[in-house]
């Protein structure tokens, strides 16, 4: 056992005494960067003993500087390492290599040093690194052990033997120093930028086999300052190294450094694409179904500790497709466990909603509803192609991996088809749904000063800006405040940007200085003011995606709402489509606002006009859709009778009929402050 801490101290002393013994001048050929590490760190061109000790002292006796100088002098006096070793690598090769890193054909760099006990473990690690598009450098005894076992080395194989001793591992660092200067815009001598680049942009890991000398330990440990995780196998204790086993070492290292392999195709026997999202599976095309009131089913996504999630693991508990009768309804519990450095518990429900899209991406899989109301079908066609329950898990896991690479480091999916086991799991899930509801329900606009914009629709409505608050979802109904927040975290330069609301201008209409400022800029100077809660004064712009339109009816001193599904003529004299044409395209039209259906349930709805009592008319279908939640809301506010006072097409199709109806029910809008 080597104690890393002790070995390092001893090794650093040894390096220090060695650098003092350097006598001859030295330099590398085929580089414009002198001794690259020393040059990048200090901007000084080191070519002789004086220069070496000067930089060494300036850099606080850094072991990397010492190792670089010592090896450079050794190479100058003793010659380059013999074939197959590369020794110092020329700038031309580094340029190509950096190219591959930027280009994405190499995902990251790994250094392997030390002496593996046998070739198998080392070969397996190298193979895994190759498979994961890592470029691997080797230094020391690991090289003859691999070549002895017939492993092919060279740039073409992405396995590069640097030199016969671990000290050649210093070239790994000089390569990164040069990449930082060539590609990262780091000016030689700008130490802090170099370190930042190495830590944040250089995707490098170090794997250590047993058998390092104290000097080697000092060199390898010195690389920690560059933010490279040092992963060791047997033989080391203490220090800040990560001790792990051969099977997990590559994965652990890549996770630590945030290197992710992109999944390109999902290896299941059916097509997966958003193109299939809209198709449905009719009863006669269906082979199996799950849920939909016919059998217990649910879905849940939970955040877990990284140690509890084995990435890519798909487990089926209970019978598979071939053990189910054609045409039958079966239980299905979809349990997704995720882990990720940037993952947060708040994101669970938002990610969980994506299961719906992902399952529908499958050519022969169909999904509706959410939580414990889900209904899933699998078609005969794809069952004939060999689709199993586990493939649905694979599809979900792969899609999450592709769509949320910044958020998720590991995803595992468990599918429960066992009729007994699903009941307990479902109960557990239901407890979590309740918890979540309680958490999200409370969120109101006052609790935060940061709202989110959405300019996704600027592609066709160039000056449109949605302002999304906890109590006012985007007008399309598809993006809540939380979604906006997550979208911003996932893609910081995307269409959802944070808006600091700033100083309050008008509490009733919900006008804020910060919001105005943001909207002015995001609308390219077209819109100067924008209220959050008013239809009459400076309402939000409308792209064209609104779920519903709220508009004033001055004749009855109220506001009506019509949803997209309603095909008839409204009391305003216009149909939804006519109205949509009038107000869409990114314009601000006082008296009209595009809204989401859920916004009707918000306490902020029509606040600028005096509240929900302004609401005079809604299509019957929309009323039905909202009935349960809206009556509950109204009861909470002590006006349970109001729901029935809202007219629909059954009691009013014209403005005259509406007036008559409103008078007959003593609608409160009639006696409110005049709208105009």
């Amino acid at each position: 056992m080597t104690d890393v801490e002790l070995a390092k101290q001893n090794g650093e002393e040894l390096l220090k005494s060695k650098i003092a013994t350097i006598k001859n001048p030295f330099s590398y050929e085929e580089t414009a960067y002198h001794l690259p590490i020393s040059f990048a760190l200090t901007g000084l061109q080191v070519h002789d003993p004086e220069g070496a000790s000067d930089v060494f002292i300036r850099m606080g006796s850094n072991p990397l500087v010492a190792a670089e100088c010592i090896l450079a002098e050794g190479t100058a006096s003793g010659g380059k390492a013999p074939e197959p070793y590369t020794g110092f690598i020329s700038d031309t090769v580094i340029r190509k290599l950096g190219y591959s890193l930027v280009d994405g054909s190499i995902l990251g760099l790994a250094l392997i040093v030390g002496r593996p006990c046998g070739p198998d473990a080392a070969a397996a690690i190298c193979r895994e690194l190759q498979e994961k598009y890592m470029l691997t450098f080797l230094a020391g005894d690991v090289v003859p052990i691999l070549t002895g076992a017939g492993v092919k080395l060279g740039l073409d194989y992405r396995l590069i033997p640097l030199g016969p001793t671990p000290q050649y591992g210093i070239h790994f660092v000089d390569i990164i120093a040069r990449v930082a200067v060539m590609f990262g815009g780091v000016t030689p001598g700008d130490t802090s930028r170099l370190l930042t680049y190495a830590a944040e942009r250089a995707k490098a890991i170090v794997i250590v086999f047993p058998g390092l000398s104290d000097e080697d330990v000092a060199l390898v440990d010195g690389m920690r300052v560059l933010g490279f995780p040092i992963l060791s196998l047997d033989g080391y204790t203490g220090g800040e190294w990560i001790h792990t086993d051969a099977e997990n070492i590559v994965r652990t290292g890549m996770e630590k450094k945030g290197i992710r392999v992109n999944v390109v195709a999902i290896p299941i026997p059916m097509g997966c694409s958003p193109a299939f999202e809209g198709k449905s599976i009719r009863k006669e095309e269906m082979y199996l179904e799950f849920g939909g009131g016919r059998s217990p089913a649910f879905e849940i996504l939970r955040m877990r500790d990284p140690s509890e999630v084995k990435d890519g693991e798909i487990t089926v508990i209970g019978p598979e497709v071939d053990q189910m009768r054609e045409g039958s309804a079966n239980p299905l519990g979809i349990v997704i466990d995720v882990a990720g450095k940037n993952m947060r518990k708040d994101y669970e429900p938002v990610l969980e909603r994506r299961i719906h899209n992902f399952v529908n991406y499958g050519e022969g899989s169909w999904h509706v509803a959410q939580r414990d109301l889900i209904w899933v079908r699998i078609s005969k066609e794809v069952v004939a192609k060999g689709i199993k329950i586990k493939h649905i898990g694979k599809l979900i896991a792969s899609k999450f991996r592709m769509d949320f690479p910044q958020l998720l480091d590991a995803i595992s999916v468990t599918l429960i088809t066992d009729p007994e086991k699903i009941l307990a799991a479902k109960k557990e899930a239901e407890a979590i749904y309740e918890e979540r509801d309680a958490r999200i329900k409370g969120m109101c606009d006052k609790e935060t000063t940061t709202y989110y914009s959405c300019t996704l629709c600027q592609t066709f409505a160039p000056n449109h800006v949605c302002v999304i608050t906890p109590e006012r979802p985007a007008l399309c109904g598809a993006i809540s405040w939380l979604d906006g927040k997550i979208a911003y975290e996932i893609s910081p330069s995307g269409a959802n940007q944070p808006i600091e609301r700033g100083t309050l201008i008008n509490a009733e209409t919900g006008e804020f200085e910060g919001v105005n400022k943001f909207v002015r800029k995001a609308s390219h100077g077209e819109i100067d003011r924008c209220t959050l809660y008013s239809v009459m004064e400076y309402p939000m712009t409308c792209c064209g995606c609104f779920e519903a339109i709220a508009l004033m009816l001055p004749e009855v001193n109220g506001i009506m709402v019509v949803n997209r599904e309603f095909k008839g003529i409204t009391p305003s004299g216009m149909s939804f489509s006519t109205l949509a044409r009038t107000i869409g395209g990114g314009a601000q039209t006082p008296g009209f606002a595009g809204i989401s259906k859920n916004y009707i349930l918000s306490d902020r709805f029509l606040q600028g006009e005096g509240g929900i009592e302004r609401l005079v008319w809604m299509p019957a279908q929309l009323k039905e859709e909202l009935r349960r939640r809206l009556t509950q809301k109204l009861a909470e506010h002590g006006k349970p009778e109001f729901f029935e006072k809202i007219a629909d097409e059954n009691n009013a199709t014209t403005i005259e009929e509406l007036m008559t109806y409103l008078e007959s029910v003593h609608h409160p809008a009639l006696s409110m402050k005049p709208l105009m």
Partner: protein
Amino acid sequence: MTYDVNFGWTGTIGNVLLGATKADGGSREVSYRIGGGTTLPFLEKPVGVKSPLIAFEICDNPVYWSPIIRNYCGDLLDDLSGWTKAADKQYGVDLIRLYLTSTKQRNFSEMAAVGRAVETVLSSTGLPLVIEGSNEPRIDSEVFQKCGETGQGERLLLGTAEASRYRSIAAAALAYDHSVIAQSPIDINLAKQLNILLREIGVRHDHIVIDPYTGTLGYGFEYSYSAMERIRYSALKGDVDLAMPMICSAIDALTVKEVREADPVIQDEMAVTWEFYTGLAAAVAGAEILCVRHPKTIPMLRAALEGMQAGAGRAGTAGGQ
């Protein structure tokens, strides 16, 4: 009357350098600085800037080129060096834009030939070059690596990066110090997004030229015009992610119905007319580089641009007339 031609704008279009002369470590006889505008085109004369530039488009495998050009230029198309020299000396263009059409062949793998084509053009002219790499994502990595390496030190303009494939070209630009063309499909937001993606990967703004995608006059140019106008407005209003010069190439100008079906006697004239008016309109919309394929379009465009530039700067003179 005094006109303020600055409209209170605060932004400036960034500069991009094209080509490197001996003094800058390259072998070009000239180099250009483009961009630098502070208002709409032809209302000012930015100092030290030559624009719009006219680029002549050629290719290394003429099978994929318009028969109209084949008819006009004849065997020249089979002689890359001769074609390049003619563009430079006879036609009098500012830039040569080489399309590596050879990479369109099925299972193309002759990377050495790509390098040779770029070398041939480099050695046949002293003008700065625009190089259009592969059309096939599979070989992007190798093609752009080769182009970048062959042109190292020459400050090429490499095309064409798109949102779905920009990494290889960005890598070539970073590794060998070239600039890139960033193309988006007639959409200001996508144009901006791509510029941000390029910036995040490390390509500096002064190494990017925007290609808004140019529809031909009568075949969608109005959309291009509108996108260009908005890109320029945003840039002048201070959006640095859009404050880059623009390049326009209406490659369909030679294949639109009116040209394709024209009487052979007037087909050349028709083609040139179409190219000329599209190019001129693109210049008015703000393009800094105009690309053409018919040699006869060049003098017409040159004369028209000079005429328009003659009036530049007058309206804004302090004190007015």
